[in-house]
């Protein structure tokens, strides 16, 4: 997909006005965080596994060149070929070249955020190759010509009615005349239409959740089985993955897998967990004749030597966005990036440049929930703060923003003045909102109050309450 992160502020406004989006997001927020915490409770070793996962990823990153070379060696030994791509353009060109080498006209794809990152579909389609997304969510988005809004459930922002309209429009050509909002029937329609594409495809393209250096394997996790049909039926199978996906052994992948499915959907295990290793072997009854692994860098080797190194531990579970209050209000498309939510706010500026994406890391209350739920303990608020500091230093923020921040920081460094101003404003806001308990209009407050009310503050500032509490404590001598 094309990046639109520079339009973030406008896209936020549009998202907040979108009532259908807000309906879908409310389902997400309560559903996935609940299933995750239930799965966690059933695995007492969850936190120990997180520590081990951090150690596995850190070790791999510190020896990344070694493990990538071993991976390459093992893929070759299994009859596959490895292609390296420094950036997005090189990666999509590599895959286009593979299509030409094998005379490919029809491609099916499993869900892969990497192929979104390198904008692969546009490149292949421009060359006259038919590309069909087969993950149900991605399929709906491709029909609607929309970008994904979530890295696990890409169409999570759409209501059943919206999908029904899309199917009604596109499935008539396949003999499904009536519009239906019955989900089982909608699934049957998509199953029938996509089955034809699976059988016709010359090349299947999938991503990888993990690459296993020891064996040269690529592992994918799905619930639909589309990734398997994509990888097994066509005569060419291409796996596209970032260089950060490699882990040393099958045992290491197993540890990470236990965290991945629980953190993503709360499942103990996905329906389909598949390990692909090279091409069809002699004597095999099916499978692709040719197998390629395209390893994509696209900024990752630079991140390895920067403050953002820890971001390379990310296993793309989506837990940070499922728990993010900002994502929960605006959804994923507003971020204008393949990667939304807290992990996207850290990753996107590294991929497309801070000039384009500097607003993303500013969209956080730093509540810390993302770091708390991250299975590989990425300090997301710290990394977002890093980008904020960079953005401020490089003067990327609007003048009004920088002026406001400088003013606040000057006041904050003068405590008596700070206390005076805060106590005055608390009194004023309290008086304005006392009757209703909330405020609906304020000078300069439209950006906040257009979509939500502001609770009227307490009678006094935090400092004043604290002082009173301390005094009481001393008096009672039991605190």
């Amino acid at each position, binding site marked *: 997909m094309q990046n639109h992160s520079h339009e973030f502020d406008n896209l936020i406004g549009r998202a907040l006005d979108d009532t259908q989006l807000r309906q*879908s997001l409310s389902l*997400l927020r309560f559903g996935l965080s609940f299933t995750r915490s239930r799965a966690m409770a059933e*695995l*007492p070793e969850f936190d120990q*596994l997180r520590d081990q996962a951090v150690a596995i990823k850190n070790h791999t990153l*510190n020896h*990344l*060149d070694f493990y*990538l070379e*071993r991976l390459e060696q093992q893929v070759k030994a*299994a009859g596959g070929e490895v292609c*390296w791509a420094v950036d997005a353009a*090189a990666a999509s060109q590599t895959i286009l070249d593979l299509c030409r080498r094998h005379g490919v006209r029809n491609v099916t794809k499993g869900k892969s955020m990497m192929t979104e990152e390198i904008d692969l579909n546009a490149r292949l389609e421009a060359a006259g190759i038919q590309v069909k997304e*087969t*993950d*149900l*969510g991605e399929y*709906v988005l491709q029909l609607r010509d929309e970008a994904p809004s979530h890295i696990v*459930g890409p169409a999570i922002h759409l209501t*059943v009615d919206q999908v029904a309209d899309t199917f009604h429009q596109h499935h008539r050509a396949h003999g499904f005349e009536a519009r239906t909002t019955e*989900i*089982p029937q909608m*699934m049957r329609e*998509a*199953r029938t239409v*996509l*089955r034809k594409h699976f059988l016709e495809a010359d090349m299947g393209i999938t991503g990888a959740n993990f690459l296993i250096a020891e064996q040269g394997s690529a592992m994918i996790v799905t*619930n*639909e*089985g*589309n990734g*398997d*049909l994509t*990888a097994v039926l066509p005569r060419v199978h291409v796996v596209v993955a970032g*260089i950060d996906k490699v882990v040393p*052994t*099958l*045992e290491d992948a*197993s*540890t990470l897998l*236990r965290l991945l499915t629980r953190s993503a959907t709360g499942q*103990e*295990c996905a*329906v*389909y*967990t*598949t*390990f*692909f*290793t090279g091409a069809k*072997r002699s*004597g*095999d*009854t099916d*499978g692709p004749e040719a197998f390629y692994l395209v390893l994509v*860098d696209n900024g990752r080797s*630079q*991140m*390895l*030597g920067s403050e953002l190194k820890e971001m390379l531990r990310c296993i793309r579970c989506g837990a940070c966005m499922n728990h993010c209050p900002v994502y929960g209000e605006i959804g994923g498309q507003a971020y204008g990036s393949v990667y939304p939510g807290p992990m996207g706010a850290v990753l996107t500026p590294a991929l497309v440049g801070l000039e384009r994406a500097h607003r993303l890391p500013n969209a956080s209350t730093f509540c810390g929930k993302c770091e708390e739920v991250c299975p590989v303990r990425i300090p997301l608020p710290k990394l977002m703060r890093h980008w904020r500091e960079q953005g401020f230093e490089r003067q990327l923020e609007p003048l009004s923003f920088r002026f406001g921040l400088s003013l606040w920081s000057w006041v904050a460094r003068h405590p008596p003045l700070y206390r005076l101003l805060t106590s005055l404003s608390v009194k004023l806001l309290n008086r304005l909102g006392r009757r209703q308990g909330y405020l609906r209009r304020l000078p300069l407050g439209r950006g906040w109050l257009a979509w939500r009310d502001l609770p009227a503050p307490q009678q006094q500032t935090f400092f004043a309450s604290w002082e009173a509490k301390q005094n009481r404590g001393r008096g009672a001598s039991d605190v």
Partner: protein
Amino acid sequence: MSDRLQILTNIRRSLGRDALAPAQQQPLEAALAAPQPNLIPAQTRLNGAALLERFVTKAEAALASVQRLGNLDELPAAIEAYLRQHQLPAALTVPESGLAALLGPQPLPFALLQRPARSGDAACLTGCFAAMAETGSVVLRSGAELPIGSGYLPDSHLVLLRSEQIVDCYESLWRKVRAELGTMPRSLNWITGPSRSADIGMSMQMGAHGPIRLHLLLLESP
């Protein structure tokens, strides 16, 4: 400079070092040559009846159906009953010749098609390489006997497994793979329940692309 060299050079620059010297590679090589398990969840360390119970419980939780068989003679009747229960045509695709032979030369209460499964097949029976009690998964592998597509194309996938094929956890599967296969086959497929998706309206529905039903015929050793 090739993309490969550029990426490796960048990685080394970021890590502040050159390519690892042989002496530095040696411990990494040793670890890869003899992979060690990390922490294995205690609840998965089971054997005997408890292992079997966990497998069945987890498979059913993943919405597979499980039928226990005392001996192989019960297999044809169990299949016939399953086909009838789901109002499927009295026909069964069996890709593996060894498995077809198990069903025997005796007259069967359904038609047996010994060939790879195709799109449109109502029911297909396969064996499996292993099963895991940790998650209730069955494990298929590609090879000369089994076309892996046969586990994905039919509407109903029936799997025959013997109780001694069940291992406790992921790590035990890797031990079995290394012992019996040496290296990974082209495709090793863990299957945990029937295909599903929640992509429409966040409502879970069975049968997205793969089988709508997964039925496990569990042959218990005496």
